[in-house]
């Protein structure tokens, strides 16, 4: 087996395969529950299994492409897709993806000393740093909003809208109107958000985490349309990302297929969970899961630094760093998925209970009075 995995691909045994399926399953549950692609869990999860960062990203973006294609059909049927907005974002996002692919490829070729895993250390370090920075920001913002909204009514509990208010006052021409989303957005703002979304999708496989909040809070798009449009966009971004990475030989289809096995089941359970949990709870669970994932990635950073020669410690310590990183990643995903599954089970039991819940209160006095009056 080792002969065929010359530089990029890992050996896949039963145990590895099961772990990838589990990653997909947990990622799918989280994805269905919190509305992201689940890459924040699956990408580092695969890296912890020994998959090079760039291959993990490439395989995940290919997996996301197929998943989005299937999912966006449902949203399109529900009228939740603004194709014009998606087209504008796509053009700029492709530019962002191209930047990301170029940086990743460069770091992969130039990184480390050119032997085994260390060759990808540069790319791994870069991906880990971007991952940690962006997702810490997202998770901490979410937590801050939940804490700030404590004691306020639900109507006041939305995230800060300072950016949206500021941009709406700026009136940067040309301003484009989007019919389905029913909003007007400056082309310059569109370009900035699209490029950033594409760059992040291409770098760490995370697009929805940035794209959906940006559409809601910066553009003023309704949530359902933001989710539907993002998924529609993800089809094209995923296709472009998958084509670019596949052209360079970074896509491991085996990993993509194993991820599907878990994620396409998990996503149904996650979506089911959303129906029965209140929004604040969703945000707290989401942010805690992301923070644990970030922590897991931070623990792995010294390994890449050592491989690049920036840190000097005994190579044997890499094992412990990897184990700790793996522990926190799986702890975050598994505990998050368990919490969600618990809610799903509760709802499932509740459904059975509510089959006969009709309560009819008749007011015979009034009815009799009416009959008498009619007579």
């Amino acid at each position, binding site marked *: 087996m080792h002969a065929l995995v010359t530089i990029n691909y890992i050996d896949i045994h039963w145990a590895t395969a099961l772990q990838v399926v589990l990653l997909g399953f947990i990622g799918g549950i989280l994805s269905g529950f919190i509305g992201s692609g689940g890459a924040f869990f699956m990408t580092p999860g695969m890296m912890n299994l020994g998959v090079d960062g760039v291959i993990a990203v490439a395989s995940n973006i290919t997996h996301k*492409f197929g*998943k989005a*294609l299937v999912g966006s059909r449902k949203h399109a049927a529900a009228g939740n897709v603004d194709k014009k907005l998606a087209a504008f974002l796509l053009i700029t996002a492709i530019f962002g993806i191209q930047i990301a692919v170029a940086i990743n490829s460069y770091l992969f070729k130039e990184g480390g000393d050119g032997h085994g895993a260390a060759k990808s250390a540069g790319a791994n370090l870069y991906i880990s740093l971007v991952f940690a920075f962006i997702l810490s920001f997202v998770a901490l913002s979410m937590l801050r909003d939940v804490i700030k909204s404590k004691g306020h009514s639900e109507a006041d509990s939305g995230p800060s809208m300072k950016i949206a208010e500021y941009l709406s006052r700026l009136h940067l021409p040309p301003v484009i109107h989007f019919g389905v989303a029913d909003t007007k957005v400056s082309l310059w703002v569109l370009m900035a958000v699209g490029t950033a979304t594409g760059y992040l999708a291409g770098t760490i496989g995370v697009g929805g985490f940035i794209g959906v909040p940006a559409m809601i809070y910066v553009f003023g798009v309704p949530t359902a349309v933001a989710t539907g449009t993002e998924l529609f966009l993800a089809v094209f971004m995923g296709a472009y990302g998958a084509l670019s990475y596949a*052209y360079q*030989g970074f896509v491991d289809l085996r990993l993509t297929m194993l991820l*599907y096995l878990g994620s396409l089941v998990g996503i149904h359970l996650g979506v089911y969970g959303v129906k029965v949990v209140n929004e604040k709870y969703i945000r707290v669970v989401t942010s805690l899961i992301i923070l644990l994932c970030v922590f897991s990635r931070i623990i792995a950073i010294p390994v890449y630094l050592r491989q690049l020669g920036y840190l000097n410690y005994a190579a044997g310590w890499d094992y412990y760093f990897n184990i700790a990183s793996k522990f926190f990643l799986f702890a975050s995903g598994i505990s998050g998925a368990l919490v969600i599954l618990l809610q799903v089970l509760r709802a499932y039991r*509740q459904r059975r209970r*509510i089959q006969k819940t009709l309560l009819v209160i008749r007011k015979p006095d009034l009815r009799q009075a009416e009959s008498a009056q009619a007579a």
Partner: protein
Amino acid sequence: MAIVMISSMYQGGREELAQALKRKTDWPVLSREELVDEARKLGIKIGRLEVAMIKRPGLPEKLAREKELYLAFLTATLCAKARQGALIYHGRAGHLLLPGISHRLRVGLTAPREVRIKRTVRALNLTPDKAENYLAQLDEDVAKWIRYIHRADGRDPNHFDLFFNLENMGLSNAAGILCATAELPDFQPTPASLKLLDDLHLSSQAKLRLALDERTHAADFHVKADNGVLTVTYPPDQDPVSRHISQVLADLPGCREIQCTMAETNILWVQERFTPESDNFHQIIRLAQRWGAAVELLRLIPPGELQGDMAALGPDPDHGFGRQACAAAWDGGVEDDDPATGADDGGLSRTEEELINRGRYGGRHTVCGGYDQILERVQGNGRYTLVVIGDMFLAKGHSTRTRQTRELALNIRDRLKAPVITADELKSRFLFGQRQALTLAGFLALVILLYGLVFTHQKPVLDFLGGAIHQHFKWLAAAAVAVFSPLVAYIYGTVAGLALKIINVD
């Protein structure tokens, strides 16, 4: 009993037209401003709703409860006044209020921009430039407000019966035309429109009570009324609050029965005639039980249904326009209330009874017309998880029926922004039958084959993806990945979806 609803933008002359009409008819006038003041006294935070709506576009979903409360107050107050006699109302979107009441006269006004600017200069003591900018911004904000509150375009001509341009016509003449129009038979109350007015009054009062009572104010209810019967559905997580519903609504005037159903979501079933023995009923009830959904019945009487009878009376002077085709067939279902009279309600009562027995009843309506009328009736009821178009246009041939049903479904989907399917599609899309079992078996075999092939031939696959072969066929490898990945997702996704359907998780 005329109801005249006048709409215009700020300083567009609506108040003056209302007063001119009042002078001619002596009908009472009510303005949006008066209603808003009353709503504020009741504690409804309209200012916050407006600011949030206009300045914080991401927030609307959060304010849904405040919006419902505002609309319930407006509807309850207008219904109460309209039930007492004639009424003139003027506001920014008066024509969109009291949806479905056929005897209201919806009037739009537009005035020359220069006139509006002059009036704004006088009213607000601004310079003309500032007044112009102010009006431009205000018009945009009001349009946004109308889209959010009424989910409609405030300028859409489909929502008006009359539209005046005050550039060449004076207010007095416009009022004269209104006066004469309001006397036309088309705008006289019918049993159907009066019944609907009562239903709207009752449901809006119930919504108000539930929203203002401290025991129930934090919950989300879906309230409908039909002939004095209130149907309240609530989500399972608000089960503890539900016991207060009957206490809060117990002494509501006009309410003779309250039906509460715990439901996670709502399914709207549109059909011409209902029978609880039909396949459609069994399929929908299966789906409702799986989803924990309440089923809302909407009987749609197509306007052309009586065309045969009308033709017998001679040529139609209106060439098919107007609402006369249904008026003879449907008087609002007042007789529905008493099944003993034997009145034909299209099977609504029997289906309702069966749904109640199964704990899945979500209310009922009867509508005459097309998709515009359906939308008018259901738009304020919140979002539906699914709209099922059942057997429609029964008087037509098979091909016409299929085409018109499909067109109806498409139009409702576009306007209601909800998934809409026909009853024929229901089984294949959401239920598990023989066809689905065959699909599952076939696709499962394909999945096993695809995974088997890839994992038993890892070396050539990896060589093709990134090894020696890849160096010569880079574009081919990329194209293969782009085709293969979604193919696997589709095939395996279908298997996973169908498998979960079997255990009722979807």
